[in-house]
Structures are given as structure tokens and as C-alpha cells.
């Protein structure tokens, strides 16, 4: 690989752009594929297969060719509501996984930069905060305040936007009450059942890092089901 290409890759990564590296393993030459960008003559004939692999986010040697493709797909957006102790551990775990975390908490004393260095923190109520984050059905929500005033609007937003993962902290009792409120707000039984609550897979732990681990494990497992 040419050093100039390596530098280009590093630059694209830092700009958080989606791309793929394509390499002819019989000749050793490689270049970058970006959607709707023309390829050099070395790869032009295989454009269709290359873009198919890219769209399917697949890595590997393309069948019947000598082309190896490696796709760089943007991290999954995970929105945490509640800048609480568990959130601090979630941020730590998410660092080594392909998740990009934003935190919403209207309570300034929780959502301080000192507690969450290098994380996007939105110090507003969910209704306002979501205007600052682009989300879609590939986004995830983790609601941790178990305060209806803060969690409920976020959960409603995530249900409407069809987030692929929605989890809410709180006991069974808390969740029963939550379900009632959501029903009154007009959500159907099926929609409400999409919420993972009590959040996390059963690991047995109760400390903040243990709960964070059980949440991140559930999130990862749901991510692979997508």
C-alpha cells in the first residue's frame, strides 16, 4: 500500500466518512471506493460487484475476482438519556465497539463535561435535544433516568422513529407504570413491547459497571440481529 493512500484512509476516518479500501491481491495495488465516485481503470470493470459489497457492508475477496474489499461503515448512534453513573461505564465499554454515544440530560449537574470528557452532551430536555441529533431506524436509545418527565418523551420519540434498540432502566413495577402511560399516550401494545425493560440481559450483577455491561451486551446482541 502506498503511504499516500494510507494517509488518505486516515483522513477519511477522521472525517467520519463511509468508504471502502479495495485491493487487487494479485497485483498489490489498492485504492479507495466512495459511493458515486469513479474508480481507476484497474477496478472500473468490477464497479458493480464492489458497490454491491459496499452496500451490504461486506468484507472479503469478491467472488471470481482478485479484489479484496474492506468497508468502513459509520458507527451506530446510541443516545443515552440520563448522565448517571451507569452511563459513565457505558461510555467506557462503547469506546472499543462501533458505537457513537450522545448523552441527553437536562440536569446540568449530571451532564457535566468533567464527568464525560469527549462525549457529545446535550444539556436540554429530550424534545429539544433530539433536534440536535440526526437519528433513524439504525439508532439506539438507552433511557437511564427512570424519571418519567425525562425518559418518557425520549422513549416516545424513539418508538416513533422506530429505533432498532430501545431500552429503559427501572424495576418491573416502574415499567408497568411506564407501559400504562405510553398506552394512554396512544402507543399500541406491540409498540410498547419493543422496549427492553427492565433493561439489559440477566448477568446477576447490581453494581453500575455490571449493569452497564449487561446493557451493552444486549445492545450488541440486538445489533447483530438487525
Amino acid at each position, binding site marked *: 500500500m*502506498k*503511504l499516500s493512500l*494510507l494517509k488518505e484512509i486516515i483522513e477519511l476516518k477522521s472525517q467520519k466518512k463511509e468508504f471502502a479500501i479495495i485491493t487487487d*491481491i494479485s497485483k498489490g495495488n489498492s485504492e479507495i471506493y466512495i459511493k458515486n465516485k469513479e474508480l481507476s481503470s484497474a477496478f472500473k470493470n468490477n464497479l458493480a460487484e464492489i458497490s454491491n459489497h459496499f452496500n451490504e457492508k461486506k468484507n472479503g475477496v469478491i467472488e471470481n475476482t482478485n479484489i479484496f474489499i474492506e468497508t468502513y461503515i459509520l*458507527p451506530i448512534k446510541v443516545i443515552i438519556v440520563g448522565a448517571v453513573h451507569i452511563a459513565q461505564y457505558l461510555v467506557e465499554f462503547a469506546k472499543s465497539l462501533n458505537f457513537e454515544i450522545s448523552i441527553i440530560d437536562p440536569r446540568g449537574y449530571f451532564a457535566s463535561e468533567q464527568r464525560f470528557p469527549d462525549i457529545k452532551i446535550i444539556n436540554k430536555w429530550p424534545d429539544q435535544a433530539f433536534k440536535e441529533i440526526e437519528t433513524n431506524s439504525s439508532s439506539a436509545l438507552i433511557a437511564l433516568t427512570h424519571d418519567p418527565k425525562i425518559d418518557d418523551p425520549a422513549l416516545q420519540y424513539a418508538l416513533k422513529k422506530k429505533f432498532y434498540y430501545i431500552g429503559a432502566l427501572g424495576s418491573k413495577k416502574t415499567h408497568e407504570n411506564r407501559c400504562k402511560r405510553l398506552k394512554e399516550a396512544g402507543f399500541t401494545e406491540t409498540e410498547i413491547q419493543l422496549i427492553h425493560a427492565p433493561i439489559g440481559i440477566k448477568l446477576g450483577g447490581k453494581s453500575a459497571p455490571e449493569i452497564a455491561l449487561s446493557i451493552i451486551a444486549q445492545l450488541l446482541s440486538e445489533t447483530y440481529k438487525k
Partner: protein
Amino acid sequence: MKNSFDEKILEEASDWINANQKVVLATVIQTWGSSPRPIGSRMIINDKGDFSGSVSGGCVESAVIRESIELLKKNQLFKKIEFKVSNESAWEIGLACGGEIAVFLEKINQ
């Protein structure tokens, strides 16, 4: 998950080059059966045999280092190597798990 934007192996390769080292980039390009690391897993190796990252669970790294040093010595640009299971010496260069992998070695050149 694969290809996290946070994975810093390529950045590390660039740092090594800035420190005037010769660097080989090793990438898992194919896997068959059970393999310890997915396609796209990376490792970098310099001419002294220092390395970072991984292409298996420790099964074939030593062979990848050897091959990489040789690549640099012979001044070759790239090479594809395959590792298959070998029961006798699985602990030495094969994959004890029974899988097979192909690793692409390439020198990062100016």
C-alpha cells in the same frame, strides 16, 4: 464490531513510518471454518519484528512476523499466505481451532 472508526492500527502504522521504520501491513482477507479473528483484522510489523494488532488468537502471529521480515529483506511489495490446520504442530504455525485463514501482507511504501 469490525472496522470500527476507533480502531487505530492504521494510524499506528503511520506513526511508525514517521519514526522511519519499515512497515508491513497484514490483513485477514479470507477465512474458512471457525477462525479466531474476522476478515479485515489487522496487524502491523516492522523490520525489527515489533508488531501491533492481531490476525488470529495468537496462533499464526509468529509466522506472520517471520514472513513480514522476509518480505522487507527481499524488498517485495506484497504476498498472500494461507494458514491451515495442522494437527501435529497446531501450536506452532497452524490454527488449533481447525479453521483456515488467508493473510495479505503488503509493505507500506513511499
